[in-house]
């Protein structure tokens, strides 16, 4: 071998060794993160919010001094067990497709006589909107270990799914971001965080079945509406209106794509 090719060979060997080292380090980091997440599973503080949510569900409130126990979440008045696994869905009384939180607002308004505007407008995690996180924790907890079973059949459900899909790919803002920018490919990561590929069953399942979730980084219980709200913030979009159609449509897209996956709600996240 002449000196030049020896030099190149040596260079390539160094590059290869370096690349391997970087790769090994990455795998080790990934393993560490997985062990960390595993350690969090036992003792999810979301349980504390579930308890608060159950209390809110059963406590008379509002001008009508009524509880939410007669709320129809889609499986009939008062049926909570398994209801979250079948949301969003079409409701004849409102003639709308609703997710859990928009449906809860309906029940608060009709059953309890509560003006829901302050709930819609308040910041997440502040009164009175913080109640929605606890209620979402409670209701979603009653679908834990039940398979997600949203299949758009009503024409309005089908339309909502299509709108959600289009919303998912809709680019805008100064960064040209869409949901799909981060969640439109298999096996991608932002920083150390894996990004579920929402258009696939596996990816949609990873996302949909683990929210609402307790966020350890902020020590807060996040509902799906809060999750989506912060996605749009990171996307550099204007703020989605709480329980608006765009958010319900995206939930419909995710939930239907996650068909059959077991609900692990409420989850625990970084």
């Amino acid at each position, binding site marked *: 071998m002449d000196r030049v090719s020896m030099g190149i060979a040596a260079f390539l060997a160094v590059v290869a060794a370096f690349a391997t080292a970087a790769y090994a380090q990455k795998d080790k980091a990934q393993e560490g993160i997985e062990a960390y997440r595993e350690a969090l599973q036992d003792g999810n503080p979301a349980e504390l919010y579930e308890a608060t949510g159950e209390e809110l569900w059963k406590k008379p409130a509002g001008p009508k001094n009524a509880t939410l126990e007669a709320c129809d979440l889609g499986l009939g008045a008062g049926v909570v067990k398994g209801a979250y696994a079948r949301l969003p869905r079409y409701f004849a009384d409102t003639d709308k497709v609703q997710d859990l939180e928009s449906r809860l607002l309906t029940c608060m308004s009709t059953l309890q006589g509560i003006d829901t505007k302050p709930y819609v407008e308040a910041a997440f995690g502040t009164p009175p909107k913080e109640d929605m996180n606890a209620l979402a924790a409670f209701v979603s907890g009653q679908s834990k270990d039940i398979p997600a079973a949203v299949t758009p059949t009503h024409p309005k459900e089908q339309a909502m799914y299509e709108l959600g899909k*289009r919303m998912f790919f809709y680019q805008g803002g100064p960064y*040209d971001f869409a949901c799909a920018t981060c969640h439109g490919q298999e096996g991608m990561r932002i*920083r150390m965080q894996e990004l579920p590929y929402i258009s696939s069953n596996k990816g949609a399942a990873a996302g949909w079945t683990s929210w609402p979730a307790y966020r350890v980084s902020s020590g807060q219980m996040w509902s799906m509406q809060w999750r989506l709200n912060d996605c749009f913030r990171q996307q550099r979009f204007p703020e989605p209106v709480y329980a608006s159609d765009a*958010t319900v449509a995206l939930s419909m897209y995710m939930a239907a794509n996650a068909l059959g996956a077991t609900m692990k709600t409420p989850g625990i996240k970084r």
Partner: protein
Amino acid sequence: MKHVALLAAFLLIAGPAAAQSTGKPAPWGPGADDAAFAQMLKASFKDKGIAKLDRLNQDETQAFCSDPGTASGPASAARREKIEAANLATVKWPSDGKWLGDWREGEKIAQSGRGNTWSDKADQPNGGNCYNCHQITAEEISHGTIGPSLLGYGKMRGQGEDVLKATWAKIYNAKSSNACSNMPRAGHMGILGEAQIKHLMALLLDPQSSVNK
């Protein structure tokens, strides 16, 4: 904001076609349910902080890339080229002919993801978000994988004029070489200023940079 004028120019050239399908009938997406979708967008968002509703208005590139099935198909090749050329035309080259700044500053910009959300103030410099998607240095293990690894970027490529130009164009307007790249158009959209881009150039290309060590 100069890019607004450019967007306006795009829209003039492209006309309303920007928001319509490229001919193939699609079961969803642009053309299928425009009225319902537009109405949903309008009713579902509100201004917050510096993030105003006008951010939902798409330029031609964004509209084209919002239907990835069509955009990536062979029938759209000519359209992609046209969009890439239009984006390339937006690139402003370094005003003083100098390409590289300080790689250490570049590392800080690459680390920062700050800026342009509704909870950000407009008066602080934006970050480049680079580590969100790219591996850049070996030291930072918390990096994304949406974009390719940039480890050894300059070492592999050197500092020839073609490399300098291609790298600058990619950072300034990533859509100049790939119409529907996931990468933001940092210069074109006013996310990063010229000095910041030079620092990122140095991070990638300076032999002393930790990228190339």
